[in-house]
């Protein structure tokens, strides 16, 4: 029975222990942490096969899996807070050959339990738990209720596979799994081809970026001889020259992959379209977790990017792309009417913040923003969903004055908005402040680039507050402009809002420089060579904090100036008609006027529209162009090369043979004397041939 033995008895578990290895109960928890991704995946199959028969149509299984993850994650979080530890486990899946000088190339399943992964477990688990609860109500009576939760659980599983992976192959597996889940969920209502188009656009855009990830992983894996992050990072630490030689390409390629998932320019085009999916999906995947996978990857590989001579040349790219993304996508949010689109662009801009932070060496800050953003952006989407649920429309032009009819939604949405805008003491304030501070600190010494990004980031803070204010006012203030009577959503939807609202408020307090620095400690524990230069700050950089807050307040103020009026003319004012503002300017300070015409109008108006236009026309245009070219090319290749060229050659040869045949036949005249002639001539020719050539 060697068969079964060899195939199944692989159980040589290589536990790769780093600094600290917890014993006792924590140790057990760590060793069983592989359940975190596996449970949702298994339950996913359970839902597919038995979901329909269950009383709650399989929702209970999904929710159960998320509860499990959330509890497990939080437990690990607490344990890790108390006493930081870092453990990896590896299980060999297959050997796929020998690399000269490097030994067998092994494919492994592995799970890593450290601050970073635990943080992600927690985020996915907790936010997921709330979103799933919410979705129960949101998706009530949907045609594919069960299938929806199956895919949703698949996503959760894939995301956990991704974040728990100890090696790059497994990372790719999770990476693609969430991609597929995203494809399935964006196209959840596939009766409408627009949704399918959006789904495919998302999948393909990511796939293109994944080419980068694949290439990066391949190069790194082959050069190091292993796919484990630890081995790659060890090589970095050891200054492996082979790896250094390809360092730049590895770093760049992997970053391209990250740009895809985290929707950085120019790969961001898929995210707004992805709003075609149900709102819970947008909330959990396209705001809280999935889109942060790229940032997570950068965090996982952080030492690689920080190390001299390896990925450090890529840092410049990272910070610049992050900076531009955060600013320009933020502007786009200003001109959206679809509330989800607003949030989508806001997400893009926040992702830009994280990326820029990573580029600036703000490891902790970037991940911290990831952490807080997950809560309040998840919250905002859920709240928006609640609104949509009540109004049956995505457009803010159909909303307004909802704060009376939907109080809970209103308050939670408000908290989320403030947190996003970075208002003290909500979560956003701390993380955004941390980012600004680190960019200012410029740990990598990127110089002017860092300064530029700092400016962009600060302006971004203003823009963020500005468009959030607009959203809040257009949605909850003024007159109701839609049909029907909007009503508050059921409890199953509102409770998650409340829960997330609380988290959005307090989540920031886990990292208050000089006060509580647990967050930093979990994350730093994993880094091999702690950064030279400030990773976190002993005390708050008051200057930066001040400017940031100021910008936020300015934004809110500008928003209030423009949109705080419960008049039917609200919409016109949305077009930035001066008349409404005029009295103010007349009666008050004239520089308001200058301010408006000089800054707001151009900013919010032409420039944003131009950006929007360029976005829709140029970048989408490019994408579509490639699509079209491929189609055309294919038609040509197939129609001509294949069907005509090669086949024609073949058939022509055949036909030629046939023709020759029918020509040769003619020799057979049927005249016996000609046959006789052939007899003699043939004989003579043979002889003569010999007499001549013989």
């Amino acid at each position, binding site marked *: *029975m*060697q*068969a*079964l*033995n*060899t*195939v199944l008895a*692989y159980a040589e578990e290589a536990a790769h222990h780093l600094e600290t290895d917890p014993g006792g109960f924590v140790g057990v928890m760590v060793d069983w942490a592989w359940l975190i991704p596996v449970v949702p995946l298994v339950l996913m199959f359970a839902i597919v096969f038995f979901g329909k028969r269950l009383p709650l149509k399989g929702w209970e299984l999904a929710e159960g899996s998320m509860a499990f993850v959330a509890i497990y994650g939080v437990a690990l979080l607490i344990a890790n807070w108390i006493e930081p530890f870092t453990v990896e486990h590896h299980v060999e*899946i*297959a*050997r*796929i*050959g*020998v*690399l*000269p000088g490097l030994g067998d*190339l092994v*494919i492994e399943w592995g799970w890593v339990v450290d601050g970073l992964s635990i943080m992600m477990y927690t985020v996915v688990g907790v936010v997921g738990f709330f979103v799933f609860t919410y979705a129960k109500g949101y998706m009530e009576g949907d045609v594919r209720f069960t299938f929806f939760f199956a895919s949703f659980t698949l996503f959760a599983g894939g995301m956990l596979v991704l974040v728990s992976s100890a090696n790059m192959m497994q990372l*790719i*597996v999770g*990476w*693609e*799994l969430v991609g*597929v889940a995203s*494809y399935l969920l964006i*196209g959840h209502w*596939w*009766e*409408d*081809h627009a949704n*399918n188009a959006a789904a*495919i656009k998302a*999948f*393909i855009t990511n*796939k293109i970026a994944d*080419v980068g990830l*694949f*290439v990066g992983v*391949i*190069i790194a*894996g*082959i050069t190091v001889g292993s796919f484990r992050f630890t081995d790659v990072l060890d090589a970095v630490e050891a200054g492996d020259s082979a790896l250094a030689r390809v360092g730049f390409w590895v770093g760049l390629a992997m970053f391209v992959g990250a740009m895809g998932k985290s929707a950085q320019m120019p790969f961001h085009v898929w995210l707004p379209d992805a709003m075609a999916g149900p709102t819970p999906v947008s909330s959990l995947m396209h705001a809280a977790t999935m889109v942060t996978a790229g940032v997570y990857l950068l965090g996982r590989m952080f030492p690689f990017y920080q190390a001299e001579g390896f990925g450090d040349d890529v840092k410049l790219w990272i910070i610049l792309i992050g900076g531009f993304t955060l600013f320009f996508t933020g502007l786009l949010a200003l001109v959206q009417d679809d509330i989800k689109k607003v949030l989508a662009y806001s997400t893009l801009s926040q992702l830009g913040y994280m990326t820029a932070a990573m580029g600036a060496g703000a490891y902790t800050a970037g991940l911290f923003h990831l952490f807080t953003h997950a809560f309040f952006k998840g919250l905002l989407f859920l709240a928006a969903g609640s609104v949509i649920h009540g109004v049956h429309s995505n457009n803010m032009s159909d909303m307004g004055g909802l704060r009376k009819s939907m109080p809970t939604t209103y308050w939670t949405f408000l908290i989320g908005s403030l947190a996003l805008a970075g208002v003290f003491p909500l979560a956003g304030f701390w993380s955004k402040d941390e980012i600004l501070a680190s960019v200012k600190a410029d740990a990598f010494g990127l110089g002017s680039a860092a300064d530029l990004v700092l400016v962009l980031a600060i302006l971004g803070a203003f823009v963020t507050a500005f468009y959030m204010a607009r959203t809040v006012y257009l949605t909850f203030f003024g007159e109701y402009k839609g049909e029907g009577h909007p009503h508050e959503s059921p409890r199953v939807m509102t409770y998650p809002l409340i829960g997330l609202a609380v988290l959005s408020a307090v989540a920031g307090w886990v990292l208050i420089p000089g006060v509580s620095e647990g967050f930093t400690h979990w994350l730093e524990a994993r880094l091999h060579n702690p950064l030279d230069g400030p990773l976190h700050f002993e005390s708050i950089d008051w200057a930066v904090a001040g400017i940031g807050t100021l910008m936020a307040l300015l934004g809110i103020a500008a928003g209030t100036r423009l949109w705080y009026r419960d008049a039917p003319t609200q919409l016109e004012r949305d077009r930035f008609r001066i008349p409404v503002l005029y009295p103010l300017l007349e009666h008050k300070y004239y520089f308001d006027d200058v301010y408006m015409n000089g800054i707001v109008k151009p900013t919010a108006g032409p420039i944003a529209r131009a950006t929007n236009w360029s976005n829709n026309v140029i970048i989408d245009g490019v994408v579509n162009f490639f699509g079209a070219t*491929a*189609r055309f090319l*294919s*038609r040509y*290749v*197939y*129609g001509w*090369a*294949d*069907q*005509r060229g*090669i*086949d*024609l050659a*073949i*058939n*022509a040869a055949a*036909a030629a043979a046939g023709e020759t045949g029918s020509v040769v036949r003619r020799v057979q005249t049927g005249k016996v004397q000609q046959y006789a002639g052939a007899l003699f001539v043939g004989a003579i020719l043979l002889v003569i041939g010999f007499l001549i050539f013989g």
Partner: protein
Amino acid sequence: MSWFETGWGLSLTVFLPLVGAFVVMAIPKARERLVKSTALAFALASFGTSVAVTVLFDFGGAEKFQMGTDLTWIPAIGSRFHVGIDGISLPLLVLSTLITVLSIVYSWNHWPEPHNPKAFLVLILLLATGMAGTFVALDLILFFIFFELVLLPMYFMIGIWGDRTMIRPPGFKREVETRLYAAIKFFLFTLFGSAFMLLGFLALYFKADPHTFDMIALAEAGRAGVFAGAFGGWVFAALFLGFAVKVPMWPLHTWLPDAHTAAPTVGSVLLAAILLKLGSYGFIRISLPILPEQAQDWAPVIAILAVVAIIYGSLACLAQTDMKRLIAFSSVGHMGFVMLGIATLTDIGINAAVIGMVAHGVITGLLFFLAGSMQHRYHTREIARLGGNQKLLPILGGILAFTVMASLGLPGLAGFWGEFMALLGSFNPLEGLSLGLFRTAMVIGAIGTVLTAGYLLWMLQRVNLGEPPDEWTGKDLHDADGFELAAWSPLVLAILAIGVFPRIVFGATDDAVVNLVKSAFGG
């Protein structure tokens, strides 16, 4: 079980279907049920023996040929009945027997016109012998026989049960039925290739001293450099022609779309799942070990053709309006990855090739099953006319979506490993091969995966999603029935299992491949 391990196991696996074919012939046509069950019984028996072989196989020594025997067969020309399996052939052997069983199960109540199950089953059983035999043969002539044995049944299968729509092939004056054109085209292409392959075999035979057709002995001779130089080059070219037609490699692929499209469902399945593998297996088993030097000369050519096939196949797929034809063209691309893996001449690449072959067999086989069943229900393959299949036939649609995902190389499903590791291997091919070329190939191949995803998802969108067209609403289209599910579920499971736990294949192949590469290229 010693008798079993000294050749009988393999011989039974190979020849039980043949015996079955003759038995079925003996049964009167009228007794259809008996005919079916007999055929199924023999196929199952063959599958069972192959499983038993797997169980008894010594995975510890997967690089050695096992379970084999070496008997006198044609002393007059020095050819022997020499069979055996190693880690490379084992998975393919099992795959071929499995697919045979599934084909018969599927056919149970899906009969293409003209009905006549008896003849159809006889052909399937003959095919089974040919396919299984090719994977166990260790004597060139024996290999040749099995390699060719599949031609006749497939010719009849396409020609008799094939698609009857009229087409006008380029360069033709009048229209012909698709089946007729495709059948003869398939037949001529393959025979053309194999004729030259045979010449190559003979040249090897006479060059070797002592003269022999034995693959193992020839491989040793090749290592010793007996076939070095121009001679070997010509021989490799001849073998290349034979195998490349079968794979098929661009530009020798044009028989494939026609054959796949015209063939009845089971025919397409067998073609895609097994027959294509005979070619790539030939490269791994014969060309590389026996002519290592020439293999290194040719590797760049193969790599280039493979990459062309990947891109070209994908582009051609984008242009298809016929579902089955699209799937057929996708085979061109997927086999391109297999050949790219082989071209690297590294153990990683060849491992990739083998698992790629297995995965493609399972996945594309399933795809053709599904396409066949859909045609069975809609009576059309026009993608334009289909739509909303997911709504009309939820189960079938679901399996289709799953298979498409597998086919576009989704990690965690079977298709991924072959593609990704082919790229992995081509990042650093055997030393001596041009790094630049192969790394370019790697990148282009990676882009190819994008295109693959593109056309597959697009196809899925047009066929499976959206609102069903009016012409189908109200029609009672029954969803997948028991026989179909019985035939498909093993494949679905295989796709999952291999994807999650590739060790199922690598566990067998790795040692064998490493040994092959080491002994052939000192790698």
